[in-house]
């Protein structure tokens, strides 16, 4: 016969801890199991939110997530240096995105230059290695390239606009398990 849940809970949550407002949080190095619970829980939560958003808003889901990403990008990039040269701007971007979305420049083997000027726009292919969005999609079984990926597109475009002052667009060329190919176009 197991004890009643209420009794067990009341015993478990009894504590003599002295709680001062200025002492919080009690520890600065949470164990990996706890971090993982929070991380995976967040990924799942995000995933279900996006699934439901897609069901209700349809194509509008992409617009919502893009806008969210763009706001984030503008906010984060506000304190970084302003650069007008594309390569310098990419370096600033790599500082901003580092750890969450690491990327590297890429070019097809038959071209000489990474940065291409065409019809007044500048474009460069970027290969994204680490990506929080890809990890979230894979955690909940969503296909890559959906609304969640638009948050990254918005994030990069917003950050690049703050740094260079130029309007931009990030197109998804191919999504993969280990890297995704995107094309950054600056007007």
């Amino acid at each position, binding site marked *: 016969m197991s004890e009643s849940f209420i009794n067990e809970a009341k015993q478990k949550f009894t504590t003599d801890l002295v709680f001062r407002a200025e002492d919080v949080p009690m520890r600065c190095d949470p164990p*990996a*199991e706890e971090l*993982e619970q929070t*991380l*995976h829980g967040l*990924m799942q939560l995000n995933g279900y939110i996006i699934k439901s958003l897609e069901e209700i808003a349809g194509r509008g889901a992409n617009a919502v997530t893009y806008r969210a990403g763009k706001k984030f990008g503008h906010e984060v990039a506000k304190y970084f240096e302003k650069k007008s040269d594309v390569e310098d701007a990419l370096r600033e971007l790599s500082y901003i995105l580092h750890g969450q979305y*690491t990327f*590297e420049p*890429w070019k*097809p*083997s038959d071209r000489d230059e990474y940065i291409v000027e065409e019809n007044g726009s500048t474009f460069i292919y970027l*290969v994204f*290695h*680490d*990506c929080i969005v*890809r*990890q*979230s999609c*894979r*955690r909940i079984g969503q296909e890559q390239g959906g609304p969640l990926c638009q948050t990254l597109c918005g994030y990069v475009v917003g950050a690049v606009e703050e740094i260079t002052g130029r309007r931009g667009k990030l197109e998804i*060329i*191919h*999504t*993969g*398990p*280990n*890297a*995704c*190919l995107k094309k950054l176009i600056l007007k």
Partner: protein
Amino acid sequence: MIEIRVDEEACNGCGLCVKDCPMGVFELKSSVSSPVHPENCMGCLSCHEICPAQALEHRGVVPCRRMYVSMKVCRMLNRVI
């Protein structure tokens, strides 16, 4: 430079990597896949995922973080013989 190796014994010539690669790296040669344009590979490893026999090996590809794999599963993966 990315080097790609195909395990010829494992490969069964299904041609899925040929169809799937966005850069057209592979071609089927007498029922075995062959990487004819490894210089175009961008390391997405979609071919790894689509190969039913896990016959592909890439050298020089930067691995991405995969924290969506829980520690419990990760430990199990390392211990399967």
